[in-house]
């Protein structure tokens, strides 16, 4: 679950993320938490900034000045709850990556009524939708 603030310009500020994960028997619960935290940030970075464009067969983005990463001052509090389970241990590697973007998209829908259907999030679309 993502809590976010969205202003009239389409600017998004993440406030809090809560994630509950059932991975079967958590062999190393702290690593499970770390993977979910990191995966969420990775996935939300893709949702917020991860656009790759191609011109004449070449990728236009070259470095962090034109391909942004979420930074520590954009990262909200993240709470991860690992469900106690007796099932066989499952994979945990990328679960957070997939959870972040849809949770943010649904938070935006709930806050603004704008139903985004493409990633990364288009701030202009969001701003226009919010005004409409």
């Amino acid at each position: 679950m993502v809590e976010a603030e969205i202003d009239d310009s389409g600017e998004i500020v993440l406030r809090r993320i809560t994630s509950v994960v059932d991975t079967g028997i958590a062999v190393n619960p702290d690593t499970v938490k770390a993977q979910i935290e990191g995966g969420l940030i990775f996935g939300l970075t893709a949702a917020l900034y991860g656009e790759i464009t191609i011109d004449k067969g070449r990728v236009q983005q070259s470095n962090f000045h034109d391909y942004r990463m979420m930074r520590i001052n954009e990262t909200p509090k993240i709470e991860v709850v690992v469900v106690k389970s007796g099932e066989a241990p499952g994979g945990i590697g990328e679960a957070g990556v997939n959870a972040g973007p849809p949770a943010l998209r649904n938070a935006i829908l709930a806050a603004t009524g704008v139903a985004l259907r493409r990633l990364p999030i288009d701030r202009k679309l969001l701003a226009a939708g919010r005004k409409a």
Partner: protein
Amino acid sequence: MHMAQTLTINGETKSFNAPPEMPLLWVLRDILGMTGTKFGCGIAQCGACTVHVDGKAVRSCVLPVSAVENRAVTTIEAVGDTPSGAKVQKAWLDLEVIQCGYCQSGQIMAAAALLAETSHPDDSDIDAAMAGNICRCGTYVRIREAIKQAANGRQS
């Protein structure tokens, strides 16, 4: 043009030949073989190359080596010998901050410089000092916690 140069790195005097405009990072890694400091972006956007110059965090990828003559350079190899560096490293291990680790020497250098200057940083201090350091694994939550733990000397 290569020139004979002398630097003080981690308290030791190092002499080498390098063009004066060569960034310090290249001197450290390619000439002196000190590969703990990492190359990330080369444009001061990610912080992986952070070292201390006279105790302050500086991006060595854009710092000409000629600019650090007669100044004290500290790298990740020796930051554990400084009081703030030792605290940071301990907190990092206690909280298992590191995932892939590539950015972490830069993160630790930035955090150690922050604590050396501000012994009890609040969240805004952490943002101001650490926002220039990117972590692709997303260890930011634990970095913040570890800095606070290092400052407060709490044991986990």
